């Protein structure tokens, strides 16, 4: 049900762009207005989310430690799993962000007759997640050739390296295949793994299907549905968008508007969904805090400010009443104060 809903949503988006872009005059809506709107929502939403997270109180020092904390000299300190200094935290974060170390620990649990439960290492999630994310990164960088004029040498080189196997015309990009293979694994994992399927929601399936649709429309546009895919006209629009002088000079094929619209939907959806792990991974307190709570006190930001009323101050305030009531006091009232009070009596 949940994946069917996501699937229908993606189909509906494709239909909107396909039919919409064929209405005369709507090319500027789909090619110019929507992309500008999407980028603004993306940037604004991204900043809003990060600021909200940064403002959230962190009441405790809650790093996850998976190794020996720094202790006595003869106890071996695990620097990566229980970082104690900032460079150690940076190293841990870099490995997490660049190599997805926490996915590397993924395990698979199974119940056998007995009942007996077994856990074993399962690296597939890590492997395909890595393939997908790096392919996506290269694809985004490669697309800069449609926005930069002149194209920097490094992007032209990346384009060449990515299509070096020269499969088909124009050549298939390795990263296009990597992106789709990675996404298909991540999607089928949600369908076939019972535990993961149980906890999967529509907002888990939707981004996967949206990205698959973006990848498929991209490959179709490049290799198969080339009608109206005049790359010079498309680049003129791309460069026009980033120089704030967009023009659509040719009759660009619908598949281009579908691809572009889906990317815009992704940009708009991004800041308000799980995809924000792009920013969130940097802000996860369980990874970016130092395990030094034995040396440095972590102050809970919502601790109320407590006004201390020490016993000495209490006695100062109520000493006379205490003496009158016969309660013993630590410091006797000063006789000089009492003397003038007694004299008239």
């Amino acid at each position, binding site marked *: 049900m949940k994946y069917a809903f996501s699937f229908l949503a993606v189909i509906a988006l494709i239909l909107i762009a396909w039919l919409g872009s064929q209405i005369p005059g709507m090319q500027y809506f789909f090619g110019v207005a929507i992309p500008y709107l999407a*980028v603004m929502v*993306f*940037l604004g939403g*991204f*900043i809003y989310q*990060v*600021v909200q997270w*940064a*403002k959230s109180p*962190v009441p405790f020092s809650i790093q996850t430690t998976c190794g020996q904390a720094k202790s006595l000299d003869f106890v071996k300190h695990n620097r990566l799993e229980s970082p104690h200094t900032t460079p150690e935290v940076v190293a841990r974060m870099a490995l997490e962000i660049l190599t997805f170390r926490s996915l590397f620990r993924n395990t698979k649990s199974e119940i056998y007759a007995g009942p007996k439960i077994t856990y074993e290492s399962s690296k597939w999630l890590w492997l395909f997640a890595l393939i997908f994310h790096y392919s996506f990164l290269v694809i985004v960088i490669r697309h*800069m*050739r*449609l*926005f*930069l*004029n*002149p*194209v*920097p040498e490094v*992007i*032209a080189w990346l*384009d*060449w390296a990515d299509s070096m196997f*020269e499969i088909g*015309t*124009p050549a298939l990009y390795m990263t296009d295949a990597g992106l789709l293979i990675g996404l298909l694994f991540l999607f089928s994992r949600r369908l076939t793994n019972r535990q993961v399927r149980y906890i999967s929601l529509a907002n888990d399936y939707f981004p996967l299907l949206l990205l698959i649709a973006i990848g498929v429309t991209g490959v179709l546009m490049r290799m198969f549905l*080339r*009608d*109206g*895919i*005049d*790359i*010079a006209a498309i*680049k*003129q629009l791309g*460069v*026009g968008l*980033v*120089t*704030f*002088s967009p023009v659509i000079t*040719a*009759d660009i*094929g619908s598949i281009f508007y579908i691809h572009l619209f889906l990317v815009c939907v992704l940009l708009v959806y991004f800041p308000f969904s799980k995809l924000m792990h792009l*920013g969130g991974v*940097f*802000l996860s307190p369980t990874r970016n805090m130092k395990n030094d709570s034995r040396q440095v006190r972590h102050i809970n930001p919502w601790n109320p400010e407590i006004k201390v009323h020490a016993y000495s101050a209490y006695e100062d305030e109520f000493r006379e009443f205490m003496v009158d009531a016969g309660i013993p006091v630590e410091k006797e009232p000063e006789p000089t104060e009492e003397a003038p009070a007694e004299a008239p009596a």
Partner: protein
Amino acid sequence: MYNKGLIVSGLVIFVLLVTFPIWFNGLDAGPLPKPELPPGGEKECVAPAAEMRDSHMQLLNEWRDDVLRNSDRVTVTVGGKEYQKGLQIACMQCHSNKEKFCDTCHEYAAVSPTCWDCHITPTELAKKEAQ
């Protein structure tokens, strides 16, 4: 806000990266490619101009496969004119200047076709012969 300096600088870097094309181009769209029309004044091609713009690379590869891999050298007749299948024996008979025709768009879109791994352009050939 925790780690204000770090987070604000991180966000600034992020925004600069996303808007990189704006800074790189500096609000200047740059020159558009202007491929030279055939110097001989020919008006007809094997397919309409729009179709050639979209999918000339696929046509060229089909021709290459026909001629070099399947030894199918049957000529193509369009609009009463007979064309041989080939880059230099057909296309470049009219579009005779690679640098002023092919390269203009290819450079604009950062495309590096493999045609010239085997073929040699008339300009380069003339240079070699002169040597």
